[in-house]
């Protein structure tokens, strides 16, 4: 019977086989994105203008780095809802350190006044190293918050949804408390340049994100740690039995998620030229949506940095084109929601199809 099924597969028409191969390919989303991109050109020719492509890319980098962090947590079968608040809290602290001036009339009543910030700026104001040191501090804080989340998930087996939701609420309120809802302005030019300028023709933000993405890809694809992450997400009990240090793996993944959120925060803050306690508050759907569209599974054990890149590319492209079509904001949100749902549905179909094919091939070939 199996041999007969296998024969049927072999006899399929080449065109159908190609479509099936594309559908099951790990490049499926990228191919879809490019087809979509080409199809949109006649309706919105501006999409291929240089300025629009540059916009598209500048929107892609911060979301990509944050989604890469989320991918690590999703690979474990978890979720990190606190990323959006890590963006806000690190934005406030990082920019407070480097800002060149604070208006006493606005900031005198904040808890940071007097010991950290003064009329003449933050502690690093005017220093040549203010920008790199502040970004470094942002990354450290993001990582520490991630470790905090990871500790509760790994040590006490608390549901990641609950732990990170609580952290999200706490951090959002904490960020607002720190500045009493004020934005931090007066940032050094070199910080704004980090978010808006290029080294030659490559934006600084792109260099920063690509380095992190390569590091993340190396960890997942080449290191034993990567195998442990996949194994822990696939079957935690079997991983423990096999000697995988699942607690340390969990700690690492959440720390990575916090680190990446802080990296995204640095880019967003630099682009806006300000520190905002509510920065990133509304982008949770974009982060998780982009990772899922790329093919990362919500149930863990499946995902790649490359897939997340494809997902973020598609998501950014979609949002860009919807804006170019001048659709209303609620239409844009409806479309975004439907696309995420379709992506999750396609993922289920593809997984089932691949499982069926591997069973058929395993028995028949």
């Amino acid at each position, binding site marked *: 019977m199996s041999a007969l099924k296998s024969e049927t597969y072999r006899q399929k028409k080449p065109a159908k086989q190609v479509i099936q191969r594309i559908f099951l390919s790990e490049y499926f989303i990228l191919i879809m994105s490019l087809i979509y991109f080409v199809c949109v050109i006649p309706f919105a020719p501006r999409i291929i203008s240089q300025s629009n492509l540059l916009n598209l890319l500048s929107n892609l980098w911060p979301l990509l780095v944050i989604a890469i962090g989320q991918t690590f947590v999703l690979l474990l079968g978890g979720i990190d809802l606190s990323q959006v608040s890590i963006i806000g809290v690190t934005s406030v602290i990082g920019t407070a350190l480097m800002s060149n001036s604070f208006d006493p009339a606005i900031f005198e009543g904040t808890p940071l006044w007097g010991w950290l910030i003064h009329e003449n700026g933050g502690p690093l104001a005017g220093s040549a190293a203010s920008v790199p040191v502040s970004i470094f501090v942002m990354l450290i804080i993001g990582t520490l918050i991630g470790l905090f989340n990871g500790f509760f998930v790994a040590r006490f087996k608390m549901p990641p949804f609950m732990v990170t939701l609580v952290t999200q609420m706490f951090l959002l309120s904490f960020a607002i408390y720190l500045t009493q*809802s004020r934005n931090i302005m007066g940032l050094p030019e070199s910080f704004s340049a980090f978010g808006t300028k290029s080294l030659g023709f490559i934006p600084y933000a792109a260099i920063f994100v690509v380095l992190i993405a390569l590091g993340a890809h190396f960890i997942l694809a080449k290191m034993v740690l990567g195998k442990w992450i996949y194994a822990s997400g696939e079957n935690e009990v079997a991983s423990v039995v096999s000697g995988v240090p699942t607690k340390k793996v969990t700690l690492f993944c959440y720390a990575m998620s916090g680190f990446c959120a802080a990296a995204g925060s640095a880019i967003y803050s630099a682009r806006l030229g300000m520190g905002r306690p509510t920065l990133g508050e509304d982008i949770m759907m974009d982060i998780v949506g982009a990772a899922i569209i790329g093919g990362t599974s919500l149930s863990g054990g499946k995902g790649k940095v490359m897939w997340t890149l494809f997902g973020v590319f598609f998501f950014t492209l979609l949002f860009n084109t919807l804006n170019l079509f001048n659709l*209303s904001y609620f239409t844009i949100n409806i479309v975004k929601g439907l696309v995420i749902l379709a992506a999750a549905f396609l993922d289920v179909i593809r997984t089932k199809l691949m499982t069926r094919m591997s069973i058929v091939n395993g028995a028949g070939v």
Partner: protein
Amino acid sequence: MKKRVSLLLALVMLATMFVGCADKKGEEGTSTSTSSSEGGSKTIALCTEDLETEFWVAAHKAIVDTLEEQGIKVIETNCQGDANKQLEQVKDVITQNVDGIIVIPKDGDTAVAVTKEANNADIPIVIFNRPPTSDEGANITVVCDNATVAEACVDYMVEEAEKKFDKTGEKLTPLIMVGDLGDPNAIARKEGFYAAIEKKPELFNKVIEVPTEWDAATALANLQSAVQANPDVDFLFTSSDFLFPTIQSVLEPLGKWVKVGEEGHVIMGGLDGDATAGELIDEGIIEGTGVQDVYNEADLAISGILDAIEAGETQPDEIREDPGFALTQGNLKEKRMDMWGNILREQ
């Protein structure tokens, strides 16, 4: 196979980028040719923050309708309160070679960021109703004199408070619902409130400040706590009229949502001049409201952007002020139909 597919896809992406880069020159050419080839037809982008209050809805409608009546194409975006998204949307409309941009910014700091983008692209920009927090960059700022309007409204409330004080001999407990302090309008309204209160300090206990962040849910939670802690609040100013339904939900169960002159009445006022405030003034529930003339502000914004486009000014830099006024129980008969909220109700 995988390598071939990757190579092919990379080539397609690179080709697209080159097409994009090659298009740059054409793009520059188009921006000048659009207006000449299409006989002066214009495209203006309207980037809004959200449309959750009557004031923003009325402003949005007035601007869009007026522009479209003049045959001008309007491109609309809405960032739903996300400053970062608003910046992205402004960058998006810039790529569409619009002739001008009108922005209702998330806050004064975001106004600075979007002004910078428009200036870099040499496109005139109008900042509507929420002025930038710094004078960096060039824009046409259309703004109401919030401090004066708030002060005028609270002055009337203070007069009423004085009458009550004379009658009872008891100091009143004032409460102000403060807006998002990242918004210069919120700061100006707060200043206007204090300017009026400080004229008669002998009438009042310490002022209670309730932060709202311009968010109804935040306002509700904070007002409930404040009123529980200070049940004797009898003088209330909201920095925006859209919070009156929230205030009603807190005061009504306490028996304090009653008409002027009735037992337990709280002296109340607001700012914006929306339909809800108009109705409450007519019913005698509140003393008055500061009115921003939304139609005047829409006209100022439209004439500002069109004048700049006609004059070929890419970085106009000026402030166009709406003087506003206070509609109170005292001047209701004369000024009732000057308030945009009442005009909307009549319509």
